[in-house]
């Protein structure tokens, strides 16, 4: 398919919650921002000058996309944009060039995908479950049913780049979660081991096409102080580590994504997060590895966006996509 490089479309999503934050721009006009959208280079966004280049989802009666021109899926969180991603996948034209295809985003959030990752030698993929509680005992009941072991990391599933909402150390330790605004919110609950709570080194790797940039940093869970002169445990040998990362990358169908791994004392790496795009925290909230990575990958991302023939949907024909 011949891409029209000058006529991109952005596929945007209204979150399932419909929630947004508003502000007044410099011209005095009200605007809104949506969390967990794909971050795009300013140089690329300057090409999007026509309102018609923006397509919003979810709309059951949405008009199909134009038949030509590359499409950027801007929904960078499966949990936040389930309906939008589903709707988008339904309306995408056959053979369209789609950056971060919605099916690939959905696949990377699936239990099937995590199961596949757990087969990678040297990679620990912790047990995890999603939950939308309506009663206080929904947490403990669901955890018992699934068989997760304490301690547990509890996160709002749409705020994954932030710190965990709470660490629950035992069945009697849900008080911190109960203090959250929890009813009807979506949570991601992840099994931990006792030594997972100790300070450790994390590495965050952002993929743009086949290329990767990484940054490592010391990490401590809330309640533990980050020790400045922390001596990390022995790292996994570089070759083994690269092999693990390559195995992960082989299973991801997105064009631009980020994985965060932690080094464990037993020379294993643990999967912490995997996101579409690159999550970048607000600088006002303090230093963030995403900010460093963005500086490294922005130019490369711009180049990839300008070359739709290198996107996954161009490399792998539709009938070969198994997301």
């Amino acid at each position, binding site marked *: 398919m011949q891409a029209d490089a000058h006529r991109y479309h952005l596929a945007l999503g209204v979150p399932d919650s*419909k929630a*947004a934050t*508003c502000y007044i721009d410099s011209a005095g006009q009200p605007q809104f921002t949506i969390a967990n959208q794909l971050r795009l280079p300013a140089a690329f966004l300057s090409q999007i000058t026509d309102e018609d280049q*923006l397509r919003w*989802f979810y709309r059951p009666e949405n008009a199909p996309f134009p038949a030509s021109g590359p499409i950027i899926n801007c929904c960078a969180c499966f949990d936040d944009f389930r309906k939008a991603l589903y709707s988008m996948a339904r309306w995408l034209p056959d053979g369209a060039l789609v950056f971060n295809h919605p099916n690939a985003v959905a696949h990377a959030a699936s239990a099937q995908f995590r199961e596949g990752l757990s087969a990678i030698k040297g990679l620990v993929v912790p047990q995890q479950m999603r939950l939308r509680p*309506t009663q*206080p005992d929904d947490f403990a009941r669901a955890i018992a049913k699934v068989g997760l072991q304490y301690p547990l990391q509890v996160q709002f599933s749409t705020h994954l780049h932030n710190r965990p909402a709470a660490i629950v150390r035992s069945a009697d330790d849900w008080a911190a979660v109960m203090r959250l605004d929890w*009813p009807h919110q979506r949570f991601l609950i992840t099994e931990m081991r006792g030594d997972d709570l100790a300070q450790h080194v994390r590495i965050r790797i952002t993929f743009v096409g086949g290329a990767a940039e990484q940054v490592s940093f010391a990490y401590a869970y809330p309640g533990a102080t980050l020790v400045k002169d922390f001596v990390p445990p022995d790292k996994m040998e570089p070759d083994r580590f690269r092999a693990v990362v390559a195995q992960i990358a082989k299973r991801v169908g997105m064009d631009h994504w980020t994985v965060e791994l932690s080094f464990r004392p037993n020379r294993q790496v643990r999967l912490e997060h995997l996101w579409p795009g690159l999550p970048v925290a607000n600088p006002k909230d303090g230093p963030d590895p995403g900010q460093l990575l963005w500086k490294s990958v922005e130019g490369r991302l711009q180049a990839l966006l300008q070359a739709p023939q290198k996107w996954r949907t161009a490399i792998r024909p539709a009938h070969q996509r198994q997301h």
Partner: protein
Amino acid sequence: MRGLNFLALPDDRKVRLQIGEHGRATFIRHNMLVLPQSATDAIHRNAATLWYPHPPSDAASEPDWIVNNCTDPDTFAGALQWLEETFQAHIPVFNSARAVAAATRDNQAARFGAIPGLTVPQAHRFRFETEDDLRRVFEDNAFTFPVLVRPVEFQAGVGMQRIDSHDDWASLLYSRWYRKDHVMIQFIDTKTADDVYLKVRVTFIGGRPYIRHCKAASHWLVQGQQNDVIVARPEYELELIDALEAHEGFMGICRQIGEISDLDFFGADMGFDLASDRFVLFEANPSMSMFFPERVGREELYFIRRKRLQIPAEEHLNDYIGKPAEWRNMRSGQSAAGSAV
């Protein structure tokens, strides 16, 4: 004459999105004034628009009049305070900040409770975490079952529940509005001898009442789609309106509500039973939708309703907005304004 059209972001900056007919996402202007297009156009022609918290330009700093679009003191506490403190008292303000602040549900009994023939249910504002908290509010304020409990910030019955006994309190826990401000309201049964619940919405413009619509339902929550009796027999609505307009007691109640309130434009919902001369004020506030866009392709009754229920009120509203000197916040103050729009 140059005016200021005052709008604001919610204090918490949180909004909900919708995808409009044009296919674009926009945020819903929750708890903001809903005016007919003719009035909106006239205001835009003659006023600069200011979105709080954007600082006003020099041109907007001394307006001759202000139209305040913020209708809820909880959603817009910061904006209303700023509006009140920033502009001098002699400037006419359509729906002044002070009048909006006084229009809360828990303040209605104090404002309208003395009107003869009108029952204004007791209401108490509170926040809760447990069933004990709810029970305490109920007992400390001498409520009797049933009561209605609803989050303060929403209209159209959103989140409202009827509680018939102590066994029902648990149904209020862990809702989407858990730990947010609620109001407990004494439920007063307005069921007629025909087992129908009737509700009337009255629009007030400069204190003058206009009946906007009636609804009739077999369920106590006469709201939106819960209008089965009139859906089954649409002409019943105009029969009810005829009867209400001819009811001297009801029209007297409306005139007194309009006189007491300092709002220029607001609506009031009342339950009623004409056979027993019973009128119960559900709520009175400026957040209600009282005008609707003109639609084509409707049946004849739609145009009859529009001609009778919407056009006279709309014409009066447009005329009233054009006379800031007559706005309610000028009643006890000095008038400095002439024609506005």
